[in-house]
């Protein structure tokens, strides 16, 4: 039996642990944060075991091959990239005192939106959230600024390159060319422009309601802005070059655990680890302390994505074979690019966007090119039906902003802001007061402009 045949044999309920894993990540931090904080590795291991044990017992060698494949080709490179970006981004610190006027806040948002595609949404959010909080320390109305920061910096801004947001890097690992995401510039410009415009309107409204003392220009010169750890930009350049290199050169194949891995990918991962180590060795500890840098986020990503990648195997296998698999109803339900934009977006709003992207990419491939090898199918998708991939990529990345649980940095920003004394909206307050009135109309307009 070939690994490809698995998708036609697996029952639909074999996708339940994947749903359980994603729902655990979404709901536990809201409903039982202390339990989740202490026990998430056990929950991840439990969902993984529920899939792996029966899967390997029932299907033997093809199942073991699928596990090895997802580990070698997806999981390890994914963790290495996130680890490198997080370590390098955590070595840069913006010091100094800005004054949180609407224009300064808008400029910080714009800078973060532009930066997110190059250092990752988590890195950009971590780099700029503290300067933003310091700039707005004296203001009474601050929560809306942090919410729009989540919209723009922690989500929408990450869509331009595969470094920006995990779904796009997973797409890159599966064969989407590095520079393909540049084709999303119009969607990003439209969406980010509209959201930033809405933010400026909001902030001008609230700025006028601040105390006169807050609005008054300070008499003396403020503390100048200083960026510390500048040299990490060089390491970011190294990461960028290594990722681009792996998409452009051919260095043969190496077999690891029975899985063929491309030589250029191994070189890329080695360079990324080198950049990570160099950043760690050359950045003063003081800068990392100021950023409250710890390895905990990478530990979380490593443990939870091990669970995600283990449990996603049956779902992806079933989707890849199109209408011959047990998830044919999913394939039949989404037909047009607009359907993919909203379906991937709505799921990304509540579940992690990286596996959501992979799920809908496999759905599109299963629908349009059933039975065709994945890399070939992706190239044909880009050449013949690129609107589908644009819809999946933008839906997954943009709509992660719809809720606190849509994308990992959202919760991180909320948590940092609350500890700095900003009363952030509740889970439903965020949706009702910000996502529904601001994001959903913008996404509806984007659908009409780009996907109808």
């Amino acid at each position, binding site marked *: 039996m070939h690994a490809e045949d698995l998708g036609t044999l697996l029952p639909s309920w074999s996708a339940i642990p994947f749903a359980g894993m994603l729902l655990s990540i979404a709901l536990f931090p809201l409903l039982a944060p*202390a339990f989740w904080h202490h026990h998430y590795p056990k929950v991840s291991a439990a969902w993984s075991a529920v899939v792996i044990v029966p899967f390997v017992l029932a299907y033997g060698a093809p199942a073991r091959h699928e596990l090895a494949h997802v580990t070698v080709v997806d999981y390890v490179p994914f963790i290495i990239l996130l680890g490198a970006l997080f370590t390098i981004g955590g070595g840069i610190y913006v010091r100094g005192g800005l004054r949180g006027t609407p224009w300064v806040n808008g400029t910080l948002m714009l800078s973060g939106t532009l930066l997110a595609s190059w250092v990752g949404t988590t890195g950009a959010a971590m780099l700029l959230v503290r300067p933003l909080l310091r700039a707005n320390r004296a203001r009474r109305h601050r929560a809306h600024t942090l919410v729009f920061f989540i919209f723009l910096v922690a989500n929408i801004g990450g869509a331009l390159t595969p470094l920006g947001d995990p779904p796009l890097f997973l797409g890159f690992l599966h064969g989407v060319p590095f520079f393909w995401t540049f084709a999303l510039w119009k969607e990003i410009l439209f969406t980010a422009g509209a959201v930033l415009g809405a933010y400026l309107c909001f902030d001008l409204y609230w700025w006028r309601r601040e105390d006169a003392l807050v609005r008054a220009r300070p008499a003396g010169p403020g503390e100048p802005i200083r960026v510390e750890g500048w040299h990490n930009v060089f390491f970011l350049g190294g990461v960028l070059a290594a990722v681009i290199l792996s998409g452009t050169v051919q260095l043969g194949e190496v077999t690891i655990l029975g899985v063929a891995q491309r030589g250029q990918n191994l070189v890329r991962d080695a360079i990324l680890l080198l950049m990570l180590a160099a950043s760690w060795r050359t950045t003063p500890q003081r800068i990392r302390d100021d950023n*409250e840098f710890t390895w905990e986020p990478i530990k979380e*990503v490593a443990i939870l994505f091990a669970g995600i990648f283990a449990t996603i195997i049956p779902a992806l296998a079933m989707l890849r074979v199109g209408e011959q698999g047990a998830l044919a109803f999913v394939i039949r339900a989404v037909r047009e690019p607009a359907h993919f934009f909203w379906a991937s977006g709505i799921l990304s709003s509540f579940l992690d966007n990286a596996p959501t992207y992979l799920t809908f990419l496999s759905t599109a491939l299963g629908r349009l090119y059933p039975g065709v090898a994945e890399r070939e199918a992706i190239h044909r998708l880009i050449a013949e039906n690129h609107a589908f991939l644009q819809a999946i990529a933008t839906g997954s990345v943009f709509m992660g902003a719809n809720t606190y649980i849509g994308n990992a940095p959202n919760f*991180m920003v909320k948590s940092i802001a609350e500890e700095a004394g900003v009363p952030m909206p509740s889970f439903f307050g965020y949706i009702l007061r910000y996502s529904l009135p601001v994001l959903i109309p913008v996404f509806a307009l984007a659908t009409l402009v780009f996907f109808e």
Partner: protein
Amino acid sequence: MTDWHELVVEGAERTLRAFVAGFLAGSGERAGGVFGSDVALELGSPGERLRALFAAGSHQIFLAPEPLAVPLAQALGERGREVGLALERRRLLESAKFSFRAEAFSRDVAAQIRGALLTALPVGVRVERRSEEEEKHPEAHGPEPFAPLHEYVYRVSGDIVGSFEGVLEVWQRARTLDFVETGPLHLEGKFLVT
């Protein structure tokens, strides 16, 4: 502490505001009052709620210290009809109460809340049904995207009870504090003959 009165006036809010402003200017009175629409007042019985629903906007509430309330009530009785205002009833406020709850994640904010709502209370004001707890998770330090937990959590709730003037002062303080949710002001008093 001064006694406060609640005046329930039939008529338009803008007219009442203008009447009160004119009265204050004319009498040289400095002690200000509070309009019911500027504070969240709890509606009493179901009947009162129903009346409020059907007669929305027809009645206004003005809360004032006795030195202002008594002559103002007299002035409303004498000249109110000329501008469409009628004093319907007057109540001497004997006590007031509101509930509050807060959840904060920084020690500084917790200290502000504690100071404003629990320790520095005006004379004649107390906290009832007080519940206060601190949670500390020293292991939860730094940004955590997937399993966020605050290193410090402060939770407090209770009822602020006492004389209207003191309770109003605490209620106004609470409204300026982030992370604090306040319930409506519940007033107790005895009706006076108007």
